[in-house]
């Protein structure tokens, strides 16, 4: 079966974002961008399923600016077979899910594996929305994925522990951090990735309206905590905490 892996180009997770002075958003000019960490885990999982003989082809998809090509090349260098870039800026999860649904209809994958959330908008919606539009089961926050015939068993990280669900294929799986450790692309594979096929499309090709439903009125710094004080000893600390009334 084919596996579809949506990936997103986001600000590198090590960077602290700078907020524009006019409060219109986060300054992304000249900032290092990378593949969303959860998506790297998704690509890795798809490759492992191919290595196990479960998957036959891996298609990486990104919906974003022209530069998202770099993100797709990274996925290809890791081991994806081909890529689709849908060029559009600032697309909300619902529109992304609609575009992915159109791609799913075209490609007929047996499984979609994607990150549980993007570290820029922190929405945690797209996978669930795709599953809804597609009318298929969803295995969100996966820490283990096992394909067995026409089903997939997904162990999910939930608040009280680990939950396992079984979904008939095709299905949507979203990855959590502990699913796997993504591999690095080797230099020869990075070179090879340059010649792998990458198709470029637009949302209009799929008949999807990407007009935003949510308007961002303002982006601001979070309230700054008042600088605390350093204490010299444990005794000092205990005294301060008692004075503050947070410990008895």
């Amino acid at each position, binding site marked *: 079966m084919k596996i579809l892996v949506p990936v997103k180009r986001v600000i590198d997770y090590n960077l602290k974002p700078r*907020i524009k002075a006019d409060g219109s958003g986060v300054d992304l000019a000249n900032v290092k961008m990378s593949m969303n960490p959860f998506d790297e885990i998704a690509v890795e999982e798809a490759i492992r399923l191919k290595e196990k003989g479960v998957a036959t082809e891996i298609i990486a998809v990104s919906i974003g600016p022209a530069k998202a090509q770099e993100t797709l090349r990274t996925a290809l260098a890791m081991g994806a077979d081909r890529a689709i870039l849908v060029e559009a800026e600032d697309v909300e999860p619902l529109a992304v899910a609609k575009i992915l649904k159109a791609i799913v209809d075209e490609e007929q994958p047996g499984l979609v594996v994607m990150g549980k959330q993007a570290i820029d908008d*922190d929405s945690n919606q797209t996978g669930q929305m795709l599953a809804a539009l597609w009318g298929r089961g969803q295995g969100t926050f996966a820490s283990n994925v096992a394909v067995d015939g026409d089903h997939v068993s997904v162990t999910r990280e939930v608040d009280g522990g680990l939950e396992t669900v079984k979904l008939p294929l095709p299905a949507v799986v979203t990855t959590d951090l502990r699913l796997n450790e993504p591999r690095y692309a080797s230099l020869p594979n990075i070179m090879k990735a340059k010649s792998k096929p990458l198709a470029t499309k637009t949302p209009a090709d799929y008949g999807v309206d990407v007009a935003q439903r*949510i308007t961002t009125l303002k982006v601001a710094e979070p309230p700054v905590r*008042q600088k605390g004080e350093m204490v010299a000893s*444990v005794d000092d*600390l205990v005294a301060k905490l008692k004075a503050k009334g*947070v*410990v008895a």
Partner: protein
Amino acid sequence: MSVLVLAEHNDGALSPATLATVTAASQLGGDVHVLVAGGSDGVAAEAAKIAGVAMVLHAGDASLANQLPENVAPLVVDLMAGYDAFLAASTSTGKNVAPRVAALLDVMQVSDIMSVEGPKTFTRPIYAGNAIATVESSDAKLVMTVRTTAFENAAADGGSAAIEAVSGGADAGLSSFVGLEATKSERPELTSARVIVSGGRALKDAATFEQLITPLADKLGAAIGASRAAVDAGYISNDHQVGQTGKIVAPELYIALGISGAIQHLAGMKDSKVIVAINKDPDCPIFQIADYGLVADIFTAVPELTEKL
């Protein structure tokens, strides 16, 4: 404005996350109804007592027992014909169900709201809490998840809402529940604890983590948290993880031991009322946000602290 709130529950008990979600729902104005999907009669009775709840809808169909989103979402979508907004807590259940509801209603979900600024205007954290966005929805119906630590809990007593049985719900045949491996703990639940003692990579191994953190947590009646590094290193199970990818907490007292304070961890705890950090590196970022910082070796300072409290 009429608002439908998804009750958060398991094992026949209502979770406090529901109370904070009801508070957020009340701030929208209008009637607040709570949907108990798959819970026992006891859960519905508990929900009916929450102050500010006008009605409880109880859907007891067997297919809803484990709150699988494939079965719950269609039920919610049917009910939404009579409501203007659907709210769920930003928990693993809420985050699983709500976007599925939103897509079926063809609306964009507003995730993890921290405040209600107007009928359709909300604030929410982005970039791991490094920025707060004020957003306005233009959709006809609102679907939102609520950051429970950002809202006070509604009073669990004092309400006397009517309970109405809802017949909807059916097995969509898209998923089945296999099992839950629950983490057993007699400690307070992490997201609702008054005090949290949290450990990081510096704890060395699982045995040391247990040895150092547990007595202090016992002494304070605290929940135990951990950084991602500690979880990845296997010191403790991942449902103790505090951070962007773990749980968001806001206790009265958060004690960070051997945690450097990476942005992904801070995103989960920087709204705590008092933060205490003990770390031997004076330059680590956790000291930038700690109310009280102590530069010391945790292996000597923590036992001393435990003893002196």
